[in-house]
């Protein structure tokens, strides 16, 4: 094995940059290559064993279904994405607000926290039929289900974060006569930010799962149906390529929410928090 000797005119810094570039390229190329390999194997398996399309369609048929049914699928994607995002937003506002309320006194926490736990541990699919009865439209029911699921990780992470503030920093704020608001805005909330970001990443993923599960449970139809309904519908009609296409869009949505929440987390923490720092040795 001979290591190609770097050109002598390269400075160490330039060599480091080139090394970093190569690393980035590999980081992209490796997973993309693996996915291409899996798709290739899938196509090959379908062709070699001549598997019928209603059992396992090849990637080409899935792609075709994606194009042919794009109108229906895209509308469903928008519905699911909207439910996911709105419920996540509500869960963020509700979770942070409720957490701030809970930490105001020990008695408030003792009184209210069990309610939040009960809501969390009850399987959401079990409440879905009830929620359906009480809400005017299926959309609202789905929204409530997804909200309930995403709410708790944000709440519990926030409570943890707000209570993990360095005691001497609290002492310092006391010493300088800080008001309750100053303490909250300038100390507790920023200190809880890493915890909030954990809650956000978990909550984002759960909001999507809940939006899908709730739609399975609730069953929606017509113009307002999301990807979960389209997926079930495709199954009933043995339109398996479309089922795969819907599944693919759900994955894409999941990846997107993960990427966005991770990016937001990096953006807000990379200047100061250990979790976002590169270890330099």
């Amino acid at each position: 094995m001979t290591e190609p000797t770097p050109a002598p005119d390269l400075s160490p810094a330039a060599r480091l940059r080139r090394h970093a570039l190569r690393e980035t390229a590999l980081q992209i190329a490796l997973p993309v290559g693996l996915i291409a390999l899996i798709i290739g194997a899938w196509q090959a398996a379908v062709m070699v064993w001549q598997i019928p399309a209603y059992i396992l369609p090849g990637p080409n048929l899935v792609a075709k279904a994606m194009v042919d049914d794009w109108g229906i699928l895209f509308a469903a994607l928008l519905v699911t994405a909207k439910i996911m995002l709105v419920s996540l937003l509500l869960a963020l506002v509700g979770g942070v607000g409720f957490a701030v309320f809970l930490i105001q006194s020990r008695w408030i926490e003792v009184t209210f926290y069990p309610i939040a736990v009960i809501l969390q541990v009850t399987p959401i699919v079990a409440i879905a039929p009830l929620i359906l009865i009480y809400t005017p439209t299926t959309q609202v029911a789905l929204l409530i289900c997804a909200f309930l699921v995403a709410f708790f990780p944000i709440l519990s992470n926030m409570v943890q974060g707000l209570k993990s503030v360095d005691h001497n920093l609290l002492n310092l704020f006391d010493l300088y006569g800080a008001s309750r608001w100053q303490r909250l805005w300038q100390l507790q909330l920023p200190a809880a930010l890493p915890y909030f970001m954990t809650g956000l990443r978990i909550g984002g993923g759960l909001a999507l799962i809940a939006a899908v599960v709730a739609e399975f449970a609730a069953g929606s139809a017509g113009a307002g149906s999301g990807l979960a309904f389209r997926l079930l519908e495709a199954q009933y009609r043995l339109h398996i390529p479309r089922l795969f296409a819907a599944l693919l869009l759900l994955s894409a949505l999941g990846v997107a929410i993960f990427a966005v929440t991770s990016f937001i987390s990096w953006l807000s923490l990379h200047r100061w928090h250990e979790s976002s720092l590169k270890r330099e040795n």
Partner: protein
Amino acid sequence: MSASLPAGHARPLVVLRNVSKEFSTGTLALTGLSLQVERGEFVSLLGPSGCGKSTALRIIAGLGEVTAGRIDWPSSRLDARGRPDGDISFVFQDPTLLPWKNVFENVYLPLKLRHVGRDEAREAVMETLTTVGLQDFARAYPRELSGGMKMRVSIARALVTKPKLMLMDEPFAALDEITRQKLNDDVLRLWHETGFTAIFVTHSVVESAYLSNRIVVMKARPGRVHDDFALQTSAVRDADYRTSEEFRQACERVSHALAGAMGATGDHG
């Protein structure tokens, strides 16, 4: 026990009268502690762990109520909470900085909490940063600084309000010896320049002997004053003083007093 400095000021800065402190766990941290600190003194509170020296410091800062006794501030205007109005600063053992704020913002914090505008405070903050030698690091974040530099930021934050009283709770205990000596010199210089009164908690004989002109040795379980004496010197406290015979004698005296305090409880931990 005596207030041993020939006080040039008529009224002492702070007087603790028979102060006791019992924690909610039932631990008696302090019992009948009486202490009078004159303006301009540099007092070291020295003692074995568990002697309540940190507790005493916190009580003086108004962090936590006393169980019995009282604290008076004869020469200060008191605020609504009965504490001297903006006159106290505290330096903790850890730098205790806000990691999400840069150095400037961290030093600006005490002023910000008192609703001083950023532009209005800029000059005071930069001036304070200059006195601790960190004027070029205003935009750096705490994680980018060494342990000694973080401690300097912490000291700058304490100084920015121009306090009458600096309370320091083993501020340099976690630092290496070289950095610690450097920071000791800095603290002495700042004490001369700005004329604050200092109460410095430490468990280091050498540090207390080097810094203070008065030493209060405390005894453990429950915490109380064991010995209280002045350490006057005409010499300038610098590198030469560290190797002088006078300093050696001072260390010996402090060491002896500390041994007495520990022997009295039979606790050498």
